[in-house]
């Protein structure tokens, strides 16, 4: 086993350690903080590269997969084991995360230079990176979940980094809670998997839950078992939905723009949202079990029953279009990118659903590069425009910010899928190709095409708004404009080198990365273990098959159409005033309103889920106060009533009766005492009378 496998834990541990140290570092140690975080991640990157190289050596001889498992703790006489795994999937993610992360770290030094909480920022960044790296190497769903939650925590801390802004605080909360909805699903899926499969380790010498033995144990020779498998998969996918901002849990992602821009870049490119896609890729054997190998003893073998990829595909495809539509009408530079991310994540899930791990991961990797590029570029723009985020008040930035413009253009073209040269084209084409060949339905394919059109459209719109035309900063913004807090002041300027160099590096990789997975040389696919039937070498012939060419032509046409439409609407008549309504708005006011308001999803949630929760909370409180409290009160009053009744009985019945008897006795006694008045002769009279009466009685009564 390679030495790097044993030392793999160092990759996440170093950033974690840096985060721990920085948490205890005084605020004024700014340089130290930046240096520590960056060097920790740099070492991680180096180790990741080493790991990556280690996996390369075995590329030809089947899938490289090494793991180290260890006991975390014991409960009763059972052991709970965790572990890490090094396989191509992990290796490539490691390199991507640490690479993009490192660039973002470096960029942050410039971007956050003036922030008071600089040290804290790097602490959180390091935590974020560490958690993500840990998630990548996890060989246990539990460890993955742990890191998954830490990623959530870090995103919470970073989105709410400017916590004094109420929007940021609210956005952080929203992000955490929305993703936690998914997390609960993932948690339940994990529990189910644990109880059904008996282990949470992914790979454990044939006994891991992603290996056939365990899968067969879960699925069993029945449809019920198959249902269990699909149920677990769907729950785990639920976690991915939350984390990767898919419908219907996408609402947090645009709001997460409240964090500093490097954070947005980190979240959208390398870490948080990628985690969901990575999770699905990691547990893909669970999502799409190998039917024949499991169905060995199943009588109803034949066409495999539907599995979780069906849901993944549809969710992905719908999200891709849905988010792209919203992105068309946004005016905040970061929000456009945010919705673009949601849309692209939809593509990734679509790719995972229809084409498997390699397809989805390819797009994840390329997207990570160009989305990081775009976000950092947007950050550079914002930085250069003095914290201006509204694209309507930018314009003409081409000249003052040439480097940013150039790199941004590369990113935009990669995202739009401009043919041949840019990575986005290849990875998106790969997805469309797979969708075209999908057995289930042709609709995801068309949705994907439509999404590509929209992507090209909104990215062009954004480019035109930001970089072309003329500056519109001076004019007053429309009243409806959102997200504007810092009016621009002064002239825009190019960002310092510490920010532009990462941009340049990312731009290069945004172009180069695409060539790792072209149909002609599907290296990445082979590396990730997808079966393409190719030899692994360069085969130009593959590129020239009829189907591939046809698809490439269609997607080229679509992209051209998107760019052309946008150029016709926005580019030809430069918008001169920030207050001018959007041309699209003038053409389709009703539809535009829906898009601008993001299909009213937030409002819908506010009216349903949030209100329901508030009502439920109030109901619980009232239940406490009235029903339970009332019951207690009722018991209280009942007891009190009983006491009153008993007191009443005592005082007015028993006591009163007794008193009456006593008083009567006393009165009669007084009367009797009055009779004996102390006068001797009265007594004597009594005796005499009595004697006489007695005698008379005797005489009459006849005592014979």
């Amino acid at each position: 086993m390679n030495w790097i496998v044993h030392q793999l834990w160092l990759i996440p541990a170093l950033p974690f350690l840096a985060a721990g140290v920085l948490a205890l570092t005084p605020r004024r140690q700014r340089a130290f903080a930046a240096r520590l975080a960056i060097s920790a991640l740099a070492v991680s990157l180096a180790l990741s590269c080493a790991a990556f190289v280690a996996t390369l050596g075995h590329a030809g001889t089947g899938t490289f997969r090494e793991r180290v498992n260890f006991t975390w703790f014991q409960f009763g006489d059972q052991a709970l084991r965790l572990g890490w795994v090094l396989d191509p999937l992990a290796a490539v993610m490691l390199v991507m995360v640490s690479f993009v992360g490192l660039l973002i770290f470096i960029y942050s030094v410039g971007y956050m230079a003036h922030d008071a909480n600089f040290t804290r920022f790097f602490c959180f960044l390091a935590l974020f990176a560490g958690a993500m790296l840990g998630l990548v190497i996890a060989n246990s769903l539990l460890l993955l979940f742990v890191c998954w939650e830490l990623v959530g925590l870090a995103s919470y801390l970073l989105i709410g980094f400017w916590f004094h802004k109420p929007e940021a605080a609210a956005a952080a909360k929203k992000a955490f809670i929305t993703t936690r909805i998914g997390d609960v699903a993932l948690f339940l899926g994990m529990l189910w998997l644990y109880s059904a499969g008996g282990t949470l380790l992914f790979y454990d010498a044939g006994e891991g839950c992603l290996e056939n033995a365990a899968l067969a144990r879960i699925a069993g020779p029945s449809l019920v078992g198959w249902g269990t498998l699909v149920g677990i998969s769907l729950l785990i996918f639920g976690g991915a939905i939350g984390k990767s901002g898919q419908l219907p849990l996408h609402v947090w992602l645009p709001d997460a723009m409240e964090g500093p821009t490097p954070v947005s870049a980190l979240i959208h490119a390398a870490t948080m949202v990628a985690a969901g896609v990575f999770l699905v890729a990691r547990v893909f054997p669970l999502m799409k079990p190998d039917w024949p190998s499991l169905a060995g003893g199943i009588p109803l073998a034949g066409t495999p029953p539907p599995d979780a990829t069906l849901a993944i595909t549809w969710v992905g495809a719908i999200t891709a279009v849905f988010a792209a539509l919203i992105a068309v009408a946004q005016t905040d530079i970061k929000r456009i990118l945010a919705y673009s991310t949601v849309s692209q994540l939809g593509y990734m899930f679509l790719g995972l659903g229809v084409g498997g791990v390699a397809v989805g991961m390819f797009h994840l990797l390329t997207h990570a590069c160009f989305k990081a590029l775009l976000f950092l570029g947007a950050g550079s723009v914002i930085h250069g425009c003095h914290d201006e985020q509204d694209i309507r008040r930018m314009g003409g930035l081409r000249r003052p910010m040439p480097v940013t413009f150039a790199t941004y253009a590369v990113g935009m073209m990669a995202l739009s899928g401009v043919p041949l040269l840019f990575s986005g084209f290849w990875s998106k084409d790969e997805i469309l190709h797979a969708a075209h060949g999908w057995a289930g339905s042709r609709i995801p394919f068309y949705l994907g095409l439509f999404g590509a059109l929209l992507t090209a459209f909104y990215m062009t719109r954004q480019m035109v708004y930001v970089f072309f035309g003329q500056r519109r900063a001076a004019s007053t913004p429309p009243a409806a404009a959102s997200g504007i807090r810092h009016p621009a002041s002064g002239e825009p300027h190019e960002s310092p080198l510490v920010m532009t160099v990462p941009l340049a590096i990312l731009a290069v990789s945004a172009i180069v990365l695409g060539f790792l997975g072209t149909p002609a040389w599907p290296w990445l696919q082979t590396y990730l273990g997808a079966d393409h039937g190719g030899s692994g070498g360069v085969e130009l012939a593959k590129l020239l098959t009829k189907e591939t060419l046809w698809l490439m032509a269609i997607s080229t046409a679509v992209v051209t159409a998107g760019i052309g439409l946008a150029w016709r609407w926005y580019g030809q008549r430069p918008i001169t005033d920030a207050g001018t309504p959007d041309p699209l708005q003038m053409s389709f006011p009703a539809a535009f309103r829906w898009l601008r308001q993001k299909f009213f999803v937030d409002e819908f949630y506010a009216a349903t889920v949030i209100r329901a929760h508030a009502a439920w909370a109030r109901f619980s409180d009232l239940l406490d106060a009235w029903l339970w409290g009332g019951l207690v009160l009722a018991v209280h009053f009942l007891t009190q009533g009983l006491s009153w009744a008993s007191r009443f009985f005592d005082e007015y019945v028993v006591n009163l009766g007794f008193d009456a008897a006593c008083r009567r006795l006393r009165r009669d006694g007084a009367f009797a005492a009055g009779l004996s008045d102390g006068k001797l002769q009265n007594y004597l009279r009594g005796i005499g009378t009595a004697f006489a009466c007695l005698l008379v009685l005797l005489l009459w009564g006849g005592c014979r």
Partner: protein
Amino acid sequence: MDAAFLIAAGLTLAAAVAAMSLRNLIHCALCLVVTFFGVAALFLLLGAEFVSFAQVMVYVGAIAILIVFATLLTRSAGVTGEPLAFQPWLVGLGIAGLVVGAIVTSVAGSGLLPTESSRIVAAAPSTRELGEQLMSTYVLPLEVVGLLLTAALIGAAVLGLREPKPSTPPPKP
């Protein structure tokens, strides 16, 4: 009905009435003496000489004299203008009358009394016999009576002793 009886009875009753009704206590005491003599005469008529003399000695000689002394000691002898009787005295008389009436009626109407024909006059026991009986048959009652008399004597003596001067003046009634 012989004259002796009538005279004795009449004297006795008349003296008794006088004793109970006269205003002056000394007179009352004297009339009481006459009454006792009358009773003693009646005892003689009934053949109980010893009792008759005992009656004279005790009642006339001791009791009547005691009453006179008490009257003098309590200075009730003088005739005062205050009412004699306990109010309402008519009730007292009525009650007394009722009692007499009841007794007389019962005596008169009783069929249990021995008739004259069944009268057996036993020979009155001589004083000697009486003394023997007292010393034999009735010795225990005699002793008790002796005791009683002693107790009465001591009691009267104690009561009659002049008490030490009370520290506080006697409360006015």
